């Protein structure tokens, strides 16, 4: 049932870090605030005291710290209940891979409290997991790179039988290192192990042009919005610092096929490598909006605002047009704040 969103709706958003590998939260909020169809009060949910979004008071009305995902669902629920008592939350938009599992587990409990979410189901979430991507591709007839899940160091010795160099060594949540020799494979293994733990994914290296696609599914198999983007400038972490919207029907069809196959609910990002022989390989599926999501609003398909509408039960018709050649250029800005503000969030967990 559609909920009235004429009043000032209260939306909690995570992912407020905006460092060189930024979270999507600030971009999500910016896009939501630009939608003329509703007014919002934005509650930031942060993990650390120095996430820049906390101090952007023109975007975020109030921020509360929440426990790290490793603390589990009980700790998260306790904190959400406290915040809900104060703010009367109506919608939560989680934006970090690592926290999604907990929020999905809490979906029904949140719903009972009157808090909406618009996320994929656990089954959808797990089907596109990095560790199952190859099986997923085979099942739904997508091009995906060959991979192997590594649980212990000694398995590395077998890799040369199945893979050619270079190989891509990936963490279960983030990070990817290209390795050109067994020595580099071993080094990458330890580096990623220390940061993200086991297992580690070894993936076939696909040469080509990297394309990213931001997509929004309605949970019934329809793609409400699809925007393909090519990175024009890449940081040393491989993140887009500038990008441009593309006009290529094949990428749109690929995302539509993905959303139809998974009945994806919510935002996602397909990382695609267009090989030199023209095959679009799905390298990864991120189960949330990407950090460059504001570009979708700028190009005429405001995905975060459409997600808000669908979360409140409104029917959103699929977008059919967007502006091609729209460019984003990210920049760093020294935001100035005060020790008192820092003290509030560090000491009280609220700002």
């Amino acid at each position, binding site marked *: 049932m559609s909920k009235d969103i004429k009043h000032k709706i209260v939306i909690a958003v995570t992912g407020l870090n905006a460092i060189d590998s930024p979270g999507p939260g600030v971009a999500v909020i910016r896009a939501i605030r630009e939608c003329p169809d509703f007014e919002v009060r934005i509650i930031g949910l942060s993990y650390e005291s120095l996430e820049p979004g906390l101090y952007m008071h023109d975007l975020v009305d109030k921020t509360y710290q929440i426990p790290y995902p490793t603390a589990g669902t009980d700790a998260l629920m306790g904190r959400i209940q406290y915040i809900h008592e104060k703010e009367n939350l109506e919608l939560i938009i989680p934006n970090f891979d690592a926290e999604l599992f907990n929020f999905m587990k809490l979906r029904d409990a949140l719903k009972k409290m009157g808090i909406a979410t618009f996320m994929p189901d656990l089954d959808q979430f797990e089907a596109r997991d990095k560790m199952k991507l190859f099986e997923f591709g085979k099942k739904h007839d997508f091009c995906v790179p060959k991979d192997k899940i590594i649980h212990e160091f000694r398995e590395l010795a077998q890799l040369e039988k199945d893979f050619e160099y270079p190989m891509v060594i990936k963490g279960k949540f983030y990070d990817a290192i290209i390795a050109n020799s067994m020595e580099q494979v071993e080094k990458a293994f330890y580096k990623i192990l220390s940061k993200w733990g086991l297992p580690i994914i070894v993936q076939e290296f696909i040469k080509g042009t990297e394309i990213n696609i931001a997509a929004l599914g309605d949970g019934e198999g329809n793609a409400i919005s699809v925007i393909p983007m090519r990175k*024009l400038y890449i940081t040393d972490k491989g993140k887009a610092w500038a990008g441009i919207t593309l006009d290529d029907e094949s990428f749109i069809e690929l995302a539509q096929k993905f959303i139809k196959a998974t009945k994806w609910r919510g935002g996602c990002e397909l990382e695609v490598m267009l090989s030199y022989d023209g095959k679009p390989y799905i390298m990864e599926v991120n189960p949330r909006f990407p950090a460059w999501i504001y570009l979708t609003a700028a190009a005429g398909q405001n995905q975060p605002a459409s997600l808000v509408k669908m979360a409140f039960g409104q029917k959103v018709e699929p977008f059919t047009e967007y502006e091609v050649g729209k460019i984003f250029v990210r920049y760093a800005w020294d935001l100035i704040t005060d020790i008192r503000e820092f003290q509030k969030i560090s000491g009280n967990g609220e700002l």
Partner: protein
Amino acid sequence: MTIRKNIAISDEGFLFNPTTGDSFSTNGIGAEIVLLMKKNILLSEVVDTMCNKYDVDKTLFERDLEEFMLQLKDYSILE
């Protein structure tokens, strides 16, 4: 060989390929050639038009045009 339909070009010679996101700059003559080619005319008509308009040796122009076409093909401007 024809120019891809969705290639955008400004009068100043800035080319944008919306399929790949690539952009290129060409000089005024290059821009004129691309704009002529976008009208879907034969390459021989491009040669005639340019040779009538400018004081240029036809053989020399054809050779330069061939080289320019190779560049356009390399950059996926042609199909």
